[in-house]
């Protein structure tokens, strides 16, 4: 039995080193999706927190499994009898259930609070028509994402509803993405900004995020939408300085001028064409 006590001690020490080492490593490691927007930072923080709480519990259960199954193994010929069985130990059961319940409840409360801070009233358009031009960076600038097989188009209602194939955003300006689709269900995934929103026909799916890092990013479709779903990606989305953004808007407005009269008036959703279903 001395060996067993030693074994338990070794397992506990190994677990402790693993748990602490893992948590420290997590704290210093890069946590996806990164820090390119307030939303992404908040998601990173949530993931970090879940990982920091989860890892010690995970490794403790693993250590216990390893100890009880592997260290304690025996082979039938030279069998040592099991120690007396643990009979229904109500205290241990209650403690375990109460413990998991507490962890779960605090996770749910944390998740709800984080959600309320990140996305107040998310998913629902803030008003029936497009937002007014933001007067400060904390007021949202509306950008519409229109998905169709197999690309995304963007509209800027506060700049006359111009339509562009490339997404360009001003840095440190709060953006309200209004995501909709013209045919099947897609999902607009701007990985670096932590934005993912399904594009559903006749639905306006709203997510807000403030990009905080200038750069060029990748956008892709995250919901299977047919043949070229895998190619519904774009490496040219940009977050730029406010002055570059103003210049870009100027240039796009000039480019779009001849076609503006053919575009549908801006709206939060567009009637999908019935012909795409083959009838």
């Amino acid at each position, binding site marked *: 039995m001395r060996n067993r006590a030693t074994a338990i001690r070794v397992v506990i020490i190994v677990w402790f080193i693993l748990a602490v080492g893992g948590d420290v490593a997590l704290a210093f490691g890069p946590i996806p999706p990164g820090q390119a927007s307030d939303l992404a930072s908040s998601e990173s923080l*949530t993931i970090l927190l879940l990982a920091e709480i989860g890892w010690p519990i995970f490794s403790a259960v693993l250590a216990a499994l390893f100890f*009880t199954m592997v260290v304690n193994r025996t082979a039938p010929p030279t069998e040592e009898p099991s120690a007396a069985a643990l009979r*229904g130990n109500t205290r*241990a059961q209650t403690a375990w259930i109460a413990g998991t319940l507490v962890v779960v409840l605090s996770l749910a409360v944390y998740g709800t609070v984080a959600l309320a801070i990140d996305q107040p009233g998310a998913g629902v358009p803030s008003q029936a028509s497009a937002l007014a031009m933001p007067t400060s960076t904390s007021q949202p600038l509306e950008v519409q994402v229109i998905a169709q097989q197999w690309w995304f188009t963007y509209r800027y209602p506060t700049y006359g509803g111009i339509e562009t194939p490339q997404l360009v955003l001003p840095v440190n300006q709060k953006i309200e993405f209004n995501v909709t689709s013209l045919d099947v*269900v897609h999902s607009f995934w701007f990985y670096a900004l932590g934005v993912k929103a*399904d594009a559903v026909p006749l639905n306006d799916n709203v997510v807000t995020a403030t990009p905080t890092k200038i750069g060029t990013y990748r956008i892709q479709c995250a919901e299977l939408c047919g043949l070229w779903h895998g190619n519904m990606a774009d490496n040219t989305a940009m977050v730029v300085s406010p002055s570059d953004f103003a210049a870009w808007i100027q240039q796009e407005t000039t480019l779009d001028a001849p076609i503006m009269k053919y575009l549908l008036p801006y709206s939060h959703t567009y009637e999908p064409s019935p012909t795409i279903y083959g009838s």
Partner: protein
Amino acid sequence: MSTPPTLARRLNEWGLLLGVIGAVIGFIIGFAVGTHAIPYSFDEDNSLGSDPGILLGYALSVVGFLAGMGFLNYPIGRLLGAKRPTEEDNAYMHGEGGGLTRYFRMTTDHKVIGLQYLVMILAFLFIGGLGAMFIRTELLTPSPTVANAQSYLTLVGLHSTLMIFMASAAIIGPFGNYFVPIMIGARNMAFPRLEALTFWLLPPAGLILLSTVFLGGFTTGWTGYAPLADQNVLGMDSYLIAFALIGMSIGLSGVNMIATIMTKRAPGLPLSRMPIFVWSVLVTSFLGALAAPALIAAVLMEVFDRSYQTTFFVPAGGGSPYLWENLFWFFGHPEVYIFVVPAFGLVMEMLPVFTRRPLWGYRVAVGGMVGIGLLSFVVWQHHLFVSGLAPSLRPFYMFSTELISVPTGIIYLVALGTLWRARTRFTVPMLFIFGFFFNFLIGGFTGVFLSDVPSDFTLHASYFVQAHFHYTIMGGEVFALMAAIVYYLPKMTGRTMDTKLLRFQFWAVFITFNGTFISLISVGILGMPRRVISYAAYLQPLNISATVFAYGLGLSMALFLGILLWEVVIKQKVAARNPWESLGVEWQVPTPVPLFNFDQVPVAWSLPYDYDTGKPAADFGPAVPAFSGA
């Protein structure tokens, strides 16, 4: 048999052939009626036929197949005033004296059906696994090489749908059908013909699903989201009919199991003394009976959308894609517990045998499984956190989903309590049980990240999700399946596949499985969406690693199948009568199990886990004579 066989029996013996003939006739009639009689204005250019033709053709071919197999003989005969079948008829239908041929006809013996299920499950697993190998091969490079976009998506759809079919029945099919009646002291199932039907729906479902490759395939994956499904060519119809058949099989199996467990228990066996595996089957059966109808309804609505021009899911016609998403996941979430609850039950059934001590916390284990069952009906919208549907409900679904980790944690508590300070016999099934707990733990912890709405924003629909459910289904359920195959084959076939090589096979499958899916967890975190044929170049190294491990995983799974075939079918290695020294009643009845299991059903029952006293689960009294026919 001294008396000449009657016409009905002759027909039954040729059932499989008649079934195939019936299927052909049914298809021709359905196809003709569907093509010509149903007004159809979709100008889809398809030389193979129209959607109504294919849909009705497949539906009637299944009816024809089942009629040929003899499923209608009893109800129609009784309607026309035929006498109740005699004892002798029942024994014949049960497969008496049938030898090997009874596996190829409709029989009402749950033991035959259990083995039929086992073979069918392994066939699905094998074909689905081949699909996975193709998928991984394609993903070696960031742009299409061996497949094109259409064939790749069809491959993804076939692999996933076939594996879902497999997983729906992988444990409850073979082991639930075979052992539940024995474990509860019943001579037969409550609805034996219905039980036979749940199995015979599987071969048509599998074949119809595979036939999609001749009809242009389908691009929706196993989730079949509308309105993409409306756009798809005829291959989509295969998916719809096949999935409806699986839904019926799941639901009917649930009804049969509930009725059996509730009404056919031996005298002296209250619910509170049932083996834990039977409890897991009971919970699963309620899930199946209540969830499958939602799937069948959704599939029928999609069938109507595609053939009668209804617009349940078509936004342009006033329908909503959310309706499909809700109905599908209302089925889809309980479905994942249909996969894994029987695995919990099996593992908890085997643990006492290998630790030689009682199952610790039987009551909380039952409570845990019932809790999982109840909660699994109120979590489905966690699949729709980013869908834009009812955002204000997200905190509730986050909470209910995280709550499931409490009853799931109880299963680990029971396992650890049973193992605590036990001297564990590290047999091959025990190795796989260890693998089960290890893998499912990763599956559970990855699930926490998906249940939390803010972290789900980034992880949703990525390879992280894909790896998560492979950890629970493949790492959990399929590892439990392999444990159960090694554990129960001696009882089911009288032969054993337990060899030294199997230990090597376990470590091979364990390491390659984790290598594959840890790579895929990583690509998911780094931003790779699911079901894509092209991906960003920076993800290639991890994808190569996943593919190399996946090849190893494929080989080691094939090795399992090879050992199974070699030891059991070719070498026919005879097993000991009770190789694991179990006290379970299923190991106390003779091998092969008599036709109706028990001649005298024992009256004194206890939980089969009294390893400290060595008391078997049921008191058989004097040796049981073999069944002697009528």
